């Protein structure tokens, strides 16, 4: 469509939009300010220490603590929001 070399947006709704790679240089957990790991499988940014994962929606990482999902050994897969 537009002549641009940005993040991929060609394919339809199946594949979630990937994160802009340069962002990973700056992004940290807003709570602990520690580095995050990009988990491609779930398209999330994971903070191993605190056991939380921030979702990436439409290529935009949601870095609001309330939106983070806990990654500890809990039965429910998604929807278990931090209070």
């Amino acid at each position, binding site marked *: 469509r537009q002549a*641009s070399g*940005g993040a991929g947006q060609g394919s339809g709704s199946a594949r979630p939009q990937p994160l802009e790679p340069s*962002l990973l240089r700056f992004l*940290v957990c*807003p709570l602990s300010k520690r580095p995050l790991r990009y988990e491609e499988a779930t398209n999330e940014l994971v903070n191993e220490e605190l056991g939380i994962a921030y979702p990436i929606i439409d290529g935009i990482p949601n870095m609001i603590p309330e939106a983070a999902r806990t990654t500890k050994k809990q039965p429910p897969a998604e929807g278990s929001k931090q209070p």
Partner: protein
Amino acid sequence: AAGLCPCWVLLASRRAALRALCGSVRGLAAGPEMHFGFQTVTEAERREKIYQVFENVAKKYDVMNDSMTLGLHRVWKDILVRKMNPCPGTLLLDVAGGTGDIAFRFIDYVRSVRQRQLQRKLKHHQNLSWQEISETYQENKFKSLGDSQVVVCDINKEMLKVGKQKAQHHGYSEGLSWVLGNAEELPFDDDKFDVYTIAFGIRNVTRTDLALQEAYRVLKPGGRFLCLEFSHVSNPLISRLYDLYSFQVIPVLGEVIAGDWKSYQYLVESIRRFPPQEELKAMIEDAGFFKVDYQNLNSGIVAIHSGFKL
């Protein structure tokens, strides 16, 4: 708007009391009670209400800005970026930058600076073959921004969505990224950015002191803090006219154009509640910034505050 006059007297005294309280514990939240425009609410309520305001206005945000300010907001934003005078390679963090106005201007600015750099470089190289000239243009095609980057951070999903759509529509993609984050709790590492801007956003932050501290933290040493915000008019005549316009015209425009009187009522009230130039300057200094100064635009209707992390 009609019922505003008698309320004004009541609220004015309350406003004064709150101001005194805020003054004595400057930099800290005034207890559990805060202001949302002229209402008094809890901190949590304030955040929620402000989120809803911007959720409601997001799609009409730009149109409303043009109508309310008669297009002047474009000039103010141009002045901000010109004051910033970024050179290629600058890393900008634009907070509360939802719809991308500052980010796009930044990109345009560094792109044109880069163009001029290239032209000057070519002018100084005499006796270049056409081959060499075209090669120079080729290799710089992918660095049209010269490694400049802007990260737009906003707490509101709807505003970011609008911003991203605008970017796609106008062909902005290189050197631009979007993050959903809270100005009071930035998801960025220390000492990372050359410039931090917040245009017409700091007024909506609930804990201004925290936002300023975060701004200080993420800036590199030598980095610049720039804040563009509605401020206070000292000239009594202009102030009167401005009040008239704000309280009689703007909410009506809000209703007519965006179908949302209350959001724009909040907007106008929040401007009146926000600290004036000197007070904001002191808060910025409290956060650790040096050489803090401000520049009034249009008699103080808008002010640009600037500070440096040294």
